[in-house]
């Protein structure tokens, strides 16, 4: 039996030890990291991203205790001068924020208490770091008294003034925090909350920045950053507290707050104060967009996988001159010579594959007299397919569909297509020209059609490390889901593809299908909103599938749709937002105003990780423009009946290219 530890098992970064945060860290490039964290920016930031985009890993990596582990022999002061920032990490779930919600007493009181508690937790992190810095920087002078005196200005508690050192002060903070824990826990039973609050919100975790400056002059002006993870776990009133700290913190401390795409519940501050504004009090970074657009993501993914394998001892982390390449573990679909090897294995009826019959039926349905007879139609088909490889036969039929003229003779068209295809074959698929361009555009879609029509067991294949990297859309967790499934299946079948022969296309496809099912059915259960999101995503995918497997494919590699934002009903907009929040679909770009009417046009694509469920492509090329009626029938859950009807009509049109059918459902040109 081969090694059972799955190197790609899903582990949350929050479950890693500080050491693992460092050992599994893969540098994505300082420019990207700076763009995300902006450690020296004086503006606070919300860093939002889908599940598994690495938010927690990123924050923890920058926190002082983890940074310290990277240079265990250096003094705390030297680490600060290297990092040029003091970053304190706090996970929102660690605060057990729900305790501060459950009460019949006035909300304000609980909100205040939560604020004080949050500050105590943050300052505890700061003090742990300062104690470590003092202990390890023996050559430096630290003025504890001045530090305490500075804080005593805002903290009204005689016990603080009595503190002799930062250690005493840390003890005081811990004691205060415990008092609150005790009182809050008891309040659940006694129904009353009696506490003396030693300071008001913003009077401790922000002025500490000044106190650090007087504690050691060389630290004056050192940026203090609070890293708060998983902000979605804070309620609206608790997020108001964080927003207030962000607002009051100007010049003292800044925040980097991470959360899921739907994490932010409010931008307002305490007591009905003003709302924080994007660009003024805070900035927002969407991690998915950065990672998706990051040109070095494939390299990152490779290193990330190598690290994972090394972590369970499956391969040497780096071998000089011969670095381990995960690509060598995965078989790929041979697309050479028009996919001839792969098509051969599909065992088509060479005399008349099914698609010829479909084309023939579509052709004789045509009202035009010169083609409506079966003999004439068969003649056209023979010219387009005789002695031509199967995939190119399909391409010829597709080109005919696209260039077919209803009012004039198509004889010369048929001849041209045939001669173009023969020249293309003669030139071994090289050379230039529209035929080659058409092949480049449609080959993958047509191969997928052949796979589907052959009714072979495998279905449309999804294979190759690069394919999986593309499918993960910049999200390392998505990559882990696919590779984890591949490893699980291979291990069950006792196949060692890490050290042995490459993993077959069939098993990789199985893994991709399972990954899609996992993501779609098991990994995103968040109640009715996610159910609705799933429903509309299914509709979107069904539309894309109808397009990809149509006789006259309306768009190259259909994985995306476009529509006008103004066309969306309120309900459709809401469900689309949910689908975006659960990462079932992605927004491409930020939408562009239409040239003619200045309306905002949006482009939405299916998450490629889900593509195998419907045999869809993994990369976006064209996008299908949707009419107002169609877009609402997709994204408004109430309009399932309309959608089915519209899809049927569209499908009929895409499969009957020679008939005159209404065209109102799809906007032919939107951009």
């Amino acid at each position: 039996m081969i090694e059972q530890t799955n190197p790609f098992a899903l582990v949350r970064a929050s479950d890693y030890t500080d050491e693992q945060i460092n050992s599994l860290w893969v540098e994505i490039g300082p420019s990207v990291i700076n763009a995300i964290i902006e450690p020296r920016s004086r503006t606070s930031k919300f860093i939002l991203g889908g599940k598994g985009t690495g938010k927690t890993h990123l924050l923890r990596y920058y926190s002082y205790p983890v940074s310290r582990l990277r240079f265990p022999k250096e003094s705390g002061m030297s680490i600060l001068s290297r990092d040029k920032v003091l970053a304190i990490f706090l996970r929102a779930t660690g605060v057990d924020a729900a305790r501060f919600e459950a009460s019949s007493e006035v909300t304000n009181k609980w909100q205040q208490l939560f604020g004080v508690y949050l500050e105590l937790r943050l300052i505890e992190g700061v003090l742990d770091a300062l104690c470590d810095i003092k202990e390890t920087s023996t050559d430096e002078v630290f003025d504890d008294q001045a530090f305490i005196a500075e804080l005593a200005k805002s903290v009204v508690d005689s016990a603080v003034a009595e503190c002799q050192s930062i250690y005493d002060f840390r003890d005081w903070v811990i004691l205060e925090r415990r008092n609150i824990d005790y009182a809050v826990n008891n309040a659940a039973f006694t129904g009353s909350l009696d506490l003396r609050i030693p300071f008001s919100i913003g009077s401790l975790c922000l002025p500490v920045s000044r106190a650090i400056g007087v504690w050691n002059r060389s630290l004056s002006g050192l940026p203090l950053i609070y890293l708060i993870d998983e902000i979605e776990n804070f309620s609206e009133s608790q997020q108001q507290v964080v927003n207030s700290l962000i607002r009051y913190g100007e010049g003292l401390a800044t925040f980097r707050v991470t959360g899921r795409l739907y994490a932010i519940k409010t931008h307002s501050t305490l007591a009905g104060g003003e709302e924080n504004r994007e660009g003024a009090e805070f900035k927002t970074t969407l991690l998915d967009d950065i990672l998706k657009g990051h040109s070095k993501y494939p390299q990152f993914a490779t290193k990330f996988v190598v690290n994972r394998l090394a972590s369970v001892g499956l391969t040497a982390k780096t071998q000089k001159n011969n670095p381990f390449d995960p690509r060598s573990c995965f078989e790929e679909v041979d697309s050479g010579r028009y996919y001839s090897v792969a098509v051969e294995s599909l065992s088509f009826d060479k005399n008349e594959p099914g698609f010829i019959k479909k084309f023939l039926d579509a052709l004789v349905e045509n009202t035009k007299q010169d083609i409506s007879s079966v003999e004439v139609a068969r003649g056209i088909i023979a010219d387009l397919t005789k002695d031509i490889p199967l995939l190119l036969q399909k391409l010829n039929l597709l080109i005919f569909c696209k260039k077919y003229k209803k009012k004039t003779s198509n004889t010369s068209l048929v001849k041209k297509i045939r001669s173009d295809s023969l020249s293309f074959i003669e030139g071994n698929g090289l050379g230039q020209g529209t035929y080659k361009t058409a092949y480049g555009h449609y080959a993958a879609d047509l191969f997928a059609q052949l796979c589907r029509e052959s009714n072979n067991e495998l279905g449309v294949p999804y294979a190759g490390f690069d394919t999986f990297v593309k499918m993960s859309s910049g999200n390392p967790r998505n990559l882990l889901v696919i590779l984890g499934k591949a490893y699980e299946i291979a291990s069950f079948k006792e196949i060692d593809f890490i050290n042995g022969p490459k993993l077959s296309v069939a098993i990789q496809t199985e893994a991709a299908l399972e990954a899609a099912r996992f993501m779609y059915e098991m990994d995103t259960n968040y109640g009715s909103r996610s159910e609705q999101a799933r429903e509309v995503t299914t509709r979107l995918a069904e539309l894309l599938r109808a397009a990809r497997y149509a006789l006259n494919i309306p768009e190259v590699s259909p994985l995306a749709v476009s529509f006008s934002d103004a066309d969306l009903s309120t309900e459709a907009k809401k469900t689309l937002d949910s689908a975006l929040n659960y990462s079932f679909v992605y927004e491409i770009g930020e939408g562009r105003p239409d040239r003619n009417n200045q309306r905002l046009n949006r482009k939405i694509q299916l998450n490629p990780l889900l593509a195998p469920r419907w045999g869809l492509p993994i990369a976006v090329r064209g996008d299908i423009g949707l009419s107002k009626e169609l877009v609402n029938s997709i994204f408004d859950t109430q309009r399932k009946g309309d959608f089915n009807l519209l899809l049927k009509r569209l499908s009929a049109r895409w499969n009957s290219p020679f008939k005159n059918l209404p065209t109102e459902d799809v906007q032919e040109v939107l951009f």
Partner: protein
Amino acid sequence: MNTTTGYKTAYEERIRTLVNHVWDQEVRGPEVDAWVNNFNGQMLDKDSEQLYALLSLSRYMYFSKRLVREMLKSLYRDHFEAPLLQRIRRNLGGTKDSKLIRRIYEQELSATRFIGIGNPAESGAHLLYYFRQVNRLPKKLFIDIAGAFIQTIECSGEVRNSKKTGEIRYLPKDGSVTRYVFFDDLVGSGNQASQYLTDHLKRIRQVNKQLDISFVSLFATTNGLAKLNGKALFDGRAMCLFELDQTYKAYDVSSRYFANSPPWFDMDELCKMTKGYGDQLQPTLPLGYEDGQLLLGFTHNTPDNAPPIFWDEGRNTPWAPIFVRYDKNYGSNP
């Protein structure tokens, strides 16, 4: 991907999950593949057969070593220890003196013998070894019939230790033993246990009317259990941990195994396939001994009440089993 492939992948995933998390990896992928490849389209088309095979396997109840051991703990705790403790306490007027109760329990336990059904090499007796281990019981509590009783023969009013013909009776070898608990892993039809025990129990009771004789098993079908609870056998003192009612008959209309089945599922087709291959493998029991139809197996053995497509080793016709059945070799005198 066609619909068949979608289901196939889903069943394979489910089987893998079962193997990894429930079956303690006691079955591996190559074995599953080899077993599925037995279904080569003789009864239905090959794809359908293999899909039915995977579906059946994904619904199979396999009890791994870990699970069987946990069940042995439950069996002892729920069907022996707890009822006895309750009775002792009741007899002591509901006392709360736990030390006293425990002391008397220990006395009662030492006056108890556990006897495996059948030959010591059969599964019932084999499981007693683990039963003793997991419940930390002393070895002296385990015995077989020959070790527990002396055969006697009654001749004209005398009871003599003899092997001559006449009416045989059993006398306990150890007079201090007052309770005998018979044990088996599974009661299927109840025929084997009944054949094995009827005479023994009659002979024991004829001499020792006060003895407390009961039966426990891990699994029993409702019919099998009813048979054992008949007057001639345990007279209502037969119990099991997991009762298998009619819904555990896999191919019955009320079958729970296939209660929530996919749209393409047709019980007649599944039955035709299972029976068709079963006929080739074991003509006398195509759906399992006495038409058992149990989709049930253990780490130590697979009962013949399960259809032979799961366990037959291909002596009549080539076949790769998924669960091994260690057949009883009864020799010439079964």
